[in-house]
């Protein structure tokens, strides 16, 4: 709230982060999926979140988007706490996400998937539709236009005849692209990408890596990305955060983190089969 803003302004030279979690904890029964985590994303930044399986990366995203309950700590976005908000309110504040296990509206067309995601940025209600008002028609046209513009961002992948195909007919890689398109359609300030290149071949993965950079440069989104592919992480990240057992064990640019002994141990430990 205002005193947090004041606090941020009070520290000279400190840039206020776009998103900040303070001592964030999430418990599942006895399991501490996140433990006193402090994490931040600044305006125009691409942050990678890495860590072995079960480290709590997805849980972090879930906590930010209000899909799991936070047991302790605070999440602050643009100086305001997100705690207690419904997921749709978080989205309209300006945080969009993709899902690790792709979750599209499978039977809606590609275009409709993107159109429906503009819901919180549009206003026309039932009466406008029933009376077929000028405002309604204008907004429909705008929604469609913006959707097409977003789809064009992915080159030829999602346009042409595919626009009207139901989403479930898409290939795996295209489904992941459409998930990103859908997140873009909510007109966020921050996009959370959960393993965007998982299951893609090297060519597709390289292409998407490029897209992530362009998302920031051309659209101005701040991005947090969970990724296992170290090549991608090196390519895109301004900063890397490493989680293990719900705790942040390292943070910094790629080279620092990659050589951090704790990180190496976390990964090797997992490789040795003890979790």
């Amino acid at each position: 709230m205002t005193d947090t803003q004041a606090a941020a302004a009070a520290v000279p030279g400190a840039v206020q982060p776009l998103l900040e979690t303070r001592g964030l904890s999430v418990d599942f029964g006895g399991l501490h999926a996140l433990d006193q985590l402090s994490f931040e994303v600044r305006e125009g930044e691409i942050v990678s979140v890495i860590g072995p399986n079960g480290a709590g990366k997805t849980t972090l995203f879930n906590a930010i988007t209000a899909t799991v309950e936070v047991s302790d700590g605070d999440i602050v976005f643009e100086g305001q706490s997100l705690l207690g908000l419904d997921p749709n309110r978080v989205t309209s504040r300006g945080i969009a996400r993709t899902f690790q296990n792709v979750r599209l509206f499978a039977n809606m067309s590609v275009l409709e998937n993107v159109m429906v995601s503009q819901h919180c940025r549009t206003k026309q209600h039932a009466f406008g539709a029933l009376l077929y008002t000028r405002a309604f028609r204008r907004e429909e046209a705008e929604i469609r236009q913006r959707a097409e513009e977003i789809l064009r961002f992915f080159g030829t992948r999602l346009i042409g005849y595919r626009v009207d195909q139901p989403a479930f007919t898409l290939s795996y890689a295209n489904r992941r692209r459409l998930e990103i398109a859908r997140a873009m359609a909510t007109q966020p300030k921050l996009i959370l990408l959960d393993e965007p290149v998982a299951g893609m071949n090297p060519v597709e993965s390289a292409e998407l890596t490029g897209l992530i950079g362009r998302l920031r440069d051309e659209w101005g989104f701040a991005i947090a990305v969970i990724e296992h592919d170290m090549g991608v992480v090196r390519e895109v990240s301004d900063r890397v955060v490493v989680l293990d057992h719900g705790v942040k064990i390292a943070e910094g640019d790629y080279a620092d983190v990659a050589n951090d002994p704790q990180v190496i141990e976390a990964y090797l430990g997992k490789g040795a089969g003890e979790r």
Partner: protein
Amino acid sequence: MTATLPPTTGPQPGGTQPEAPLAAPRPALAHDWRRIARMGSIAAFGQVFIALSNMPVRLDERLIVKPVLSLGYLVLLILPFAAGYRQGHQIKREGVPTYAPGLNEVVGGLSCGALAGGGLSLLAVLLTHFDLREPLVNWSPILLDLLAFGNATWFAAVIWLVIGGGMGAAGGVLRLLGPRIRRAVVTMALAVAGAAVLESLVVDLAEGLGLETLTDRLYARRGGVNWSSALGLAVVSGLLAVVGRGRFRQARTRVTELEGAKRTQANVGLILLTAAVLIVLPLFAGKLTNELLANVGLFVLLALGLNVVVGLAGILDLGYVAFFAVGSYSAAVLTAATSPKIAPEMPWLAALIVVVIIAGLVGLFIGAPVIRMRGDYLAIVTLGFGEIIRLLFLSDWLSGWFGGSQGITNIPAAGIFGLTDVAGTDPRRVFYLVLAFCALAIYVSWRLEHSRLGRAWMAVREDETVAEAMGINTVNVKLLAFVVGAVLGSFSGAIFAAKVGSVFPTSFLILVSIVILVVVIFGGMGNIIGVIAGSAVLIGVLGGPKQPGLLVEFSEFKLLIYGALLIWMMLARPEGLIPSVRRTRELRQQEMAQDAWLRGEVDDDDGGNGPAGSPSAV
């Protein structure tokens, strides 16, 4: 995308299956006899059930084809035939050859059918030798007489084996016919059955149009199609099917392939034509037909309302009758002079505005607690609310308002701008009023479906969690669906009150909810045309919960048939008679995914050579 349904005959344009060549027919006796025994016994069980439900005796009075076939016998012929046909069905599996149909199918059908008929033979023998009156309340000597065609028991035992076998074999033979001839045969059967079912309607209309001579020739004096006319009808319709089918399909593809403005023009033309028919038709119809039309219209209106809730937003509401009741009762209270507590005696149209507001509020009130639940729980709770509303109207507590079980009577006719008064005494006017409101309901559903709200409904139906994560306020959106459904239902209720002239709690049993749901499912959830067709056919032919349909004889067995139909529908064609494309996909997705996987097409839409890559499939 027509390609979503596996084509039964031949490859379709845009179809996905490259038809494998058929293997040579199997030898006549090479059967999985256990499967035949199983199917035959199921059919036999069904036959016995039908016989003991007393359906044949009751329906025997209704003639289909003058001296040869009554509805009573017809219901006993269907199962052996269906079993015989079904028996020849081959599951198409990768790597397993599909055999060309041959003698094998006929022999299989015959055995299945004979088994089914055997059920009746056994029943006849048992009934004569043991006194089974005690457990089997519907049993009567008439049934035995009917089964034996007036002869001795042994005759019944033999003849049903023969009839069953014959019908079963006919079912098998149907598989042998080429698609064209098969279609012609089916059309012939449907034409005769349709003429018989629609008898009262056709006679009534013909009278209005001065065409009695035609119907006198077609129908026998005491009901049923004359056998000679039935023959003629069959020949004509069969010929038409053979000659006209290609044309019909051509015309249809021509319309569906029209683009943009032309397409809209064609649609508007079709709508105007339908409207014209619906407006002109009742002018020539008598009172009974108009009564039927009015009843059907009331249910179409209800079905359209429920379709918004169930079909569009995917909320399974089992208590929809609540809104029908609220509409009826509030219209009654507002317009009737005899209303117990307050009697503002408003004109009907003015009252309607209040009714809409009340219904909307009740929708909010019921919806608010309900929509936080999901799936089965939600369905159960709505079921409860439907009952609660009825019990409230029935209760002593509120009888000062709503008259308890006495209800509210002497509800005046609905005045429309002082032009006409719409009351049950003139069903034609009721029908026109209902028609106007149906048009309104269609417009509302159509507009909303293609709006921001409609898309949000779809998203909620698809995946509520994700919809919420994409910024949709799922609570609001679902509440709105409830409210829109409530308002549309209340229209029907308000017309119902004015039509019947009285409202009682017994008009709003759970049964009404179930029947509306069945017609929506039968027609095809989420598809306006399907829902209209479904309710028109079912309510028109079988009748509503209390309203008679064209087959008046069925009224006693209506529920049985609704239930059977629902089960069959869910098993065989969950997407409904005229499915919404989207719903079909939803329901068949898994199957299709498997097919695609078998064909090795998954994850390959970038190559542009898969079926999804052909632009014609759009």
